[in-house]
């Protein structure tokens, strides 16, 4: 019975795939025809000689730094905003605030970075500022939720003891709650930063600065050689971040 259902499911999946190709009117045989392959080959060959001239490399270096800066500042802002939203979302300010902030966090998180970036370009103009804000907004949603969970799971006694000795709410939070959770908050933020570096390199496609904007501009001007070196730089950036995070994880987390 269950076996038959599984085969039925499989058949449905195959049908869905066939329907998709039909709906999109993609003709694979035409795509792989001699003519179109030759065109693609011509296009691709333009990328085979990346531009490594000094001024272009300097521009790429600046773009990479801009990407890193966008991701770092965006993550920092997100961590601050996320912490601010996590307090009510962890149920410290009543039930109404809890549901309201959870809804807000979910909304921030559900909208992808690139959509936020497109919105922010409208609101704040072209350039890295829009990308930074977009990263901050989306990441605040992600971090806020994670932070709220961390706050809920941390023991309440230390902060309570400080309140009982007459300390204020903020002081009790800083002395009683933060010491227990900040390693976790830091780990979450670093993890999201890693993610955001990757994201920041493509936000430029909608005009939000960084390496992405360079790539978009050079592709629009049909400068395949310049575009190729930007893509290489992106690849290097992503691989470097991957290697660094894998190394640091091994070094500090899994010992």
């Amino acid at each position, binding site marked *: 019975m269950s076996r038959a259902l599984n085969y039925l499911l499989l058949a449905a999946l195959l049908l869905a795939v066939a329907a998709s190709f039909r709906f999109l009117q993609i003709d694979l045989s035409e795509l792989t025809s001699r003519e179109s392959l030759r065109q693609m080959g011509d296009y691709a060959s333009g990328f085979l000689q990346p531009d490594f001239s000094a001024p272009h490399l300097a521009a790429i270096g600046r773009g990479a730094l801009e990407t890193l800066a966008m991701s770092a500042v965006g993550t920092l802002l997100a961590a601050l905003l996320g912490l601010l939203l996590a307090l009510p979302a962890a149920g410290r300010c009543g039930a109404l605030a809890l549901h309201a902030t959870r809804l807000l966090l979910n909304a921030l998180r559900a909208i992808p970075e690139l959509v936020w970036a497109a*919105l922010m370009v*409208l609101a704040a103009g072209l350039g890295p*500022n829009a990308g930074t804000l977009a990263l901050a907004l989306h990441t605040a949603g992600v971090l806020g939720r994670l932070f709220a969970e961390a706050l809920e799971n941390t023991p309440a006694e230390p902060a309570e003891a400080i309140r009982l000795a007459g300390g204020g709410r903020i002081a009790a939070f800083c002395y009683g709650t933060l010491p227990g959770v900040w390693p976790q908050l830091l780990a979450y933020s670093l993890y999201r930063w890693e993610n955001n570096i990757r994201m920041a390199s*493509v936000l430029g496609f909608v005009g939000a600065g960084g390496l992405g904007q360079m790539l978009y501009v050079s592709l629009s001007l049909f400068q395949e050689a310049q575009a190729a070196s930007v893509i290489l730089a992106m690849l290097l950036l992503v691989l470097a971040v991957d290697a660094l995070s894998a190394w640091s994880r091994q070094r500090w987390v899994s010992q």
Partner: protein
Amino acid sequence: MNAARHDPAALPRLALTVLALVLLWPALSLSELNLGVLLDQDNARTMGRFVADFWPPAHQGDFLLLLWRATLETLAIATAGMALALALALPAGLAASRVLSLSALHRGGRPAWWSLLARWPVRGLLIVLRSVPEIVWALLFVRAVGLGPTAGVLAIAITYAGMLGKVYAEIFESVDPRPARALLGAGSSRLGAFFYGVLPNAAGEMLSYSVYRWECAIRASVVMGFVGAGGLGQQIDLSMRMFAGGEVASMLLVFLALVLLADQFSRLLRARLT
């Protein structure tokens, strides 16, 4: 006693603070962070009007038809892209893993050095395919084959082939190697050994991961629309450029619903398949 007169952590903390400030300063200037722009009179007014348009979301008949077609297109891009990715990833995953290595057969499971070396080009290719973000592939394909869903399908196929290939190779190596080795030792072909020795054990996990990736592909296909690769994303981009708040709102709502449904559906499917 005298040694501990001052806080021993003070100097490291000071150094860390100075370092953070030294790094933060160029980061702030490079990222051109300026929250004031958002509060600027003109900007705020335009944005205010735009956001005020969000309610009520657009729901005219012809717009809904357009929305329906865009949604279907997004789903179709994700599904077709995943199908192509699967077709590419299966052989690539086999080539990158060492389950079907003939040289490993009489070496106790450890392939010869030349056999390991031969796998590196495939692995390197998979790394490049998945490390270039899908939206970059989408942008490249939009320039190559023109605006529209074809670019999206190809971009998903390429990126996800890289991801699936790597994970498939890992799955192949994690299942029990003895059935395949026995078949190979008995003189069956590599393909035969794969279909009868490896696939039965690996299929559940592979399908489960592929379904999970399909869910990610839906999200990715919406995002890729912003560079012109068809689907819901392209429509959102168009409506945003025209400052049509109501249309953006209803499309975002549809996007959220789509993501939510795909999540539920993939969870259901994975529970069934494994």
